[in-house]
């Protein structure tokens, strides 16, 4: 900040207005964070609070909850529904919903069982067929929405039942197919763990990338006469992130380690985050979610955006189904039923993606699903029946939506829409 606004040096392009307070110091950043939260921009706060409460309560009730191997299992479980939740984020950003993701995942797991085990197709072919089926279902929803104006809520509610029926039909009277334990698919879902050194290395990456990209962006902005984030804050953030990740990985490595399946989920979240924040497609998604008519008048292909979101959502749901089949080593009538739908939606909302459209982040699936699975895992450890688990999960979803609604109201009154 060598520039002096009152001197002869030209002030930075974005620092010409004296009405704006610029929080550049560390204390200023903390103040900015508090301001944002009180204005309803909660970000990751509900997740952090939720995780602390959950850890304290469940580890008090059963110390096994925080044991490394239990957390490893937790991550395995996170990956299946988490991938579905990534797709849900795509439709939620548009202000739409897909209620059939559970059934779609069940159908795709049934397809893998039938095509691979019963009909002897190569495993890759069976998985591809399931993903194509997912894309096809998404295309149907998009067509119903774009051409016939059918609300996605109703279209996917119909899909929920229809896909479940199809799942039961192709599974036939036996109703359940066991997948061979020695197969790579099942090993991926139950056993395969990253080597320790690799997991430590990967945990370093986010911090390093953060510093690398931050420094590059800082240089570009300085060169363009724009203000830039101070280096100190950047390094502090990256350091905190790296320490947190390395500690987490160290703790998991005390047990079995970091599952490859979880790594796949994280990789998908990173890709989706890039697509949503750094590409024209992502910008168009948020624009359509914020103001559909304005997006149309800007020349955005609104129908194409809806189609891409519905197709992506159903395809990711199908992928989640494949992962759950590998996790459970079976394709059954139960796959994708019960709380899968609501868990996927609740994870996205808890992580900070708004049900009202126009706001969200791929990482909300990552953080939200950890909260949701931690609750479900903790309740299982307490040997509670599924009746109680459903009631509690339903309550958590309700709380998440209430927080979302209140935060939205606060954002509107603070001019942050």
């Amino acid at each position, binding site marked *: 900040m060598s520039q002096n606004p009152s001197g002869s040096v030209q002030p930075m*392009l*974005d620092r010409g*207005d004296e*009405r*704006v307070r610029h929080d550049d110091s560390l204390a200023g950043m903390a103040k900015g964070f508090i301001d944002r939260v009180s204005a309803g921009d909660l970000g990751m706060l509900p997740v952090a609070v939720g995780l602390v409460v959950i850890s304290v309560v469940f580890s008090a009730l059963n110390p096994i909850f925080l044991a490394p191997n239990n957390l490893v299992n937790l991550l395995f479980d996170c990956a299946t529904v988490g991938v579905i939740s990534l797709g849900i984020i795509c439709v939620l950003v548009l202000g739409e919903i897909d209620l059939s993701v559970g059934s779609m995942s069940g159908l795709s797991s049934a397809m893998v069982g039938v095509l691979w085990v019963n009909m002897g197709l190569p495993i890759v072919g069976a998985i591809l067929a399931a993903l194509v089926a997912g894309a096809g279902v998404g295309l149907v929803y998009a067509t119903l929405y774009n051409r016939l104006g059918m609300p996605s809520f109703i279209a996917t509610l119909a899909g929920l039942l229809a896909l479940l029926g199809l799942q039961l039909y192709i599974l036939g009277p036996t109703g359940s197919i066991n997948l061979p334990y020695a197969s790579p698919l099942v090993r991926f879902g139950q056993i395969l763990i990253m080597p320790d050194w690799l997991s430590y290395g990967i945990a370093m990456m986010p911090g390093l990338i953060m510093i690398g990209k931050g420094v590059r*962006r800082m240089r*570009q*902005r300085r060169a*363009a*006469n*724009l203000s830039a984030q101070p280096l100190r804050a950047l390094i502090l953030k990256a350091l905190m992130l790296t320490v947190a990740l390395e500690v987490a990985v160290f703790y998991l490595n005390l047990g079995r380690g970091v599952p490859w399946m979880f790594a796949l989920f994280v990789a998908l979240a990173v890709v989706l985050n890039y697509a949503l924040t*750094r*590409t*024209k*497609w992502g*910008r*168009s998604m*948020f*624009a359509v*979610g*914020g*103001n559909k*008519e*304005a*997006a*149309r*008048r*800007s*020349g*955005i*292909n609104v129908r194409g955006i809806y189609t891409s979101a519905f197709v992506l959502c159903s395809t990711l749901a199908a992928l989640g189904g494949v992962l759950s089949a590998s996790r459970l080593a079976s394709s059954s009538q139960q796959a994708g039923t019960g709380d899968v739908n609501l868990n996927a939606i609740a994870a996205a909302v808890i992580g900070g993606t708004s049900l009202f459209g*126009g*706001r969200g982040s791929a990482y909300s699936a990552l953080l939200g699903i950890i909260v949701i699975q931690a609750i479900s895992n903790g309740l299982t450890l307490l040997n509670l029946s599924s009746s109680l688990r459903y009631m509690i999960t339903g309550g958590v979803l309700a709380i998440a939506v209430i927080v979302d609604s209140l935060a939205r109201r606060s*954002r*509107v009154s*603070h*001019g*942050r*829409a």
Partner: protein
Amino acid sequence: MTAKLPSAPDRGKSVLRLSGISKNFGAVSALTDIELDVKAGEVVALVGDNGAGKSTLVKVLAGVHQPSAGSIEFCGQAVTLDSPAKALDLGIATVFQDLALCENLDVVANLFLGHEMSPWALDEVAMEVRAWTLLRELAARIPSVREPVASLSGGQRQTVAIARSLLLNPTLIMLDEPTAALGVAQTAEVLNLIERVRDRGLGVIIISHNMEDVRAVADRIVVLRLGRNNGVFTPESSNQELVSAITGATDNSVSRRHDRKAVHVQETHGGAE
């Protein structure tokens, strides 16, 4: 996507020619047999009472509505404007009355919406620099381009909408009530800007209820009444002529007040002008 027709045609050449444009919404005919010519380097003001069809005409030209009948000629070629993207690609930029901004996105994102720099790895720095330069040209008082548009005032939003229309270097620019929510300095700046745009050889269509603004910049004033053409005037035409064309009556409250004032002025100043 930049399938532009020859941009910035010679001064005096026709940019836009509408003939027989009609638009029906069910049983209501919002526009009937509209004729309109806009030449390069010309500012055409579109005036009329509420419900005269001005905004509908603008939406037809922006590709938002499709006309029920009639033909549109742009830069000498017959065109069909079947989508907003088509109109933008041809070089017709519009500032809509409702501004059509996405409140959840920041100013930079709104300015470049649908036309982002490097679509696969958005160039935020370049876009932000361009945004500041554009806003400076408009003398805009936007505190930060990284705040969501929801936090801006009405006038600031209007400036953002105007800046966005200039971003793509259009051939024809349409402004629907561009100064309605603007302060004194910003209104003057927008009028200056319209003149600058005209001097660059672009065609400008401006809709306004403010006759002073219209007189200040327009080369021709086209009056619409109940969805039909109701005369073409020059900025030198008297207020009375314009008002009677707009309202369709020679005797109305505005003209009566005008007469009263004129009599009053004559009495006090001894009949000068």
